[in-house]
């Protein structure tokens, strides 16, 4: 008997691992018409893992102190072997994650995969999307560059528009009247510990929901059937479906490889796409750069604030939109999932996406 078979047998005897693997890989059946959009979950898991790994490596050399932070990032980029690669993978990776999150969310919306009984799956996913953005925002301050300092100053300043508690909220976010060492300390703690912990738990809940309720079938083609448990919990099985492993896993692998190739292409050939010149100068609280713009994924929010006559109304509009999206499974309760049978939804969807893109472009050039 070969040594690896003996190891597997040893583990099998104690944990019954073959059963678990079979149930979750070879005997776990997915709908036959599952499309490429379903691979985005695996892509996101891979990118999260990469962020986690590069984040830990960055932590070895990063110093969360306003006098040392910029220098330590500079040291990572110039003196630590492959430090440039680790940092660029982390920076570009965070942008790729936002792209993948948006694609995942929009595809779920279009296919109405949030429909009952998957409300918790949607809510946990929506929470992950917001936590992802919060991780981006907190990570932005850590290099303590001009961009970090001023982008955080204006971002935290907007919280001051909330009536009654606005000023206290700004002080709470910054840990004082101004962005300072205290802000860096709390953003660092949130970025490397608080938010990732919450994020990990939410990823666990999201995966549990997906696995527990079963994968939803795409609402396309002749295979489409209305499926809705009425009285008690039922896992959605897909008899006659394709095994997750190896059949479907190959599609996941292909898309993951293409995403990683795209990530590495930006890292090697055009890393500056996501790094404006102000990100290369150390923070100077006494010199305000001429044009501070948020990252591309916040541009729509930035432009919304400028359109409305008051900052509070702008924030309220953003809050209303996000609340509507979060509660969509409870609002859109009709059983029909096929886009062709939902013309009003598809019109709103297309208009919504166009407005989002339009506002972002406007925000970029305004």
């Amino acid at each position, binding site marked *: 008997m070969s040594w690896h078979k003996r190891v597997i047998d040893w583990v099998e005897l104690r944990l019954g691992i073959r059963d678990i693997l079979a149930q979750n890989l070879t005997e776990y059946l997915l709908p036959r018409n599952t499309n490429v959009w379903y691979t985005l979950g695996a892509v996101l898991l891979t990118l999260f893992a990469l962020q986690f790994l590069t984040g830990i490596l960055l932590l070895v050399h990063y110093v969360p102190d306003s006098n040392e932070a910029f220098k330590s990032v500079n040291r990572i980029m110039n003196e630590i072997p492959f430090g440039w690669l680790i940092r660029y993978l982390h920076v570009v990776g965070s942008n790729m994650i936002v792209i993948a999150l948006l694609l995942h969310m929009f595809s779920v919306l279009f296919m109405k995969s949030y429909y009952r009984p998957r409300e918790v799956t949607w809510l946990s996913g929506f929470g992950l999307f917001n936590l992802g953005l919060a991780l981006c925002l907190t990570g932005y301050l850590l290099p303590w560059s001009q961009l970090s300092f001023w982008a955080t100053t204006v971002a935290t300043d*907007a919280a001051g528009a909330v009536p009654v508690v606005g000023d206290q909220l700004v002080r709470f976010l910054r840990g004082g009247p101004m962005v300072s060492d205290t802000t860096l300390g709390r953003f660092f703690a949130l970025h490397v510990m608080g938010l990732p912990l919450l994020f990990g738990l939410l990823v666990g809940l999201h995966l549990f929901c997906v696995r527990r309720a079963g994968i939803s079938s795409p609402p396309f083609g002749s295979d489409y059937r209305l499926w809705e448990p009425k009285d008690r919990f039922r896992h959605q099985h897909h008899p006659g479906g394709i095994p997750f492993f190896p059949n479907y896993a*190959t599609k996941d692998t292909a898309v993951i490889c293409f995403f990683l190739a795209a990530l590495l292409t930006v890292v090697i050939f055009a890393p500056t796409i996501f790094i404006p010149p102000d990100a290369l100068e150390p923070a100077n609280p006494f010199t305000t750069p001429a044009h501070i713009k948020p990252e591309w994924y916040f541009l729509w929010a930035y432009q919304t604030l400028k359109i409305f006559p008051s900052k509070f109304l702008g924030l309220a509009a953003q809050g209303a939109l996000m609340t509507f999206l979060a509660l969509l499974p409870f609002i859109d309760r009709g059983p029909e999932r096929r886009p062709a049978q939902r013309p009003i939804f598809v019109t709103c969807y297309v208009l919504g996406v166009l407005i989002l893109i339009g506002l972002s472009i406007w925000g970029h050039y305004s």
Partner: protein
Amino acid sequence: MKRLKPLLWAGIGLFLLLLAVPGPVLAAETSCLQCHGAQSGRFGEPVPLWRQSIHAANGISCHNCHGGDPTVMSMDAMSPERGFRGVPAKTDIPDFCGRCHIGVKEDYLQSAHGKALGKGGPQCVTCHSNHKVVAASPALINPQSCTRCHDYGRAADIKAAVTSTDQMIGGISDDLAGLHHLGIDVKEMQGKLFSLRNEFHRLFHEVDAEKVRQQTADFQQRLGQIRQQVTVIQERLDQRKLVGGGVIALLVLAGVLAALIRKNYHEEERAGE
């Protein structure tokens, strides 16, 4: 309605939570730019001119030259108690600019230009303009500008002597800016180049063609040392691109292979239907 109540409360709670997620707003400009920028005529003219200047590009704002307090949003910003200096007389301009450009002022005062100050000779803004301040470069030495006061012959000699070295400085400066944008630490080299450029530009102000010619070889040799360091870094970056490109190609290949295997499975699945 009863069933909707928890949903309503959840909605309100979530809404308030999302309100706490801040969005960015525009950063404010100095009081000088805000007040003068809103005015027309001679009081408003300097602002758009300044925005195109080398001073604006380097973060040198109104108060750095004219004094005053840029954080005060009233006429008090321009009170002498707050260090406001106002507009200098023509003959005071070299002293006004020379507070920062100390070496250039010394060279200028020793030159024929400086000796003619107050007697119809040029001062700083004659060539570099005021508000829309232009950086020192051979482009400033041109027939249109120089023949306002004298014959172009000697000026053309000086321009010919400085042009190749100045182009070399410009080329290295662009390359260093490119490397800096990639996050490479070129601060030391930028510092050396800055000091070399200033030293070289001081020659312009002496308006002595022979001295420029004599010193050009020394400047070019010192610039060559910086160029060599830049070349080493650029070669290292090219190597990164080569290896990175190989890894990208492997990833694409792996993706295509996985997609082909999936296609194979797909055909098997269809055959089994």
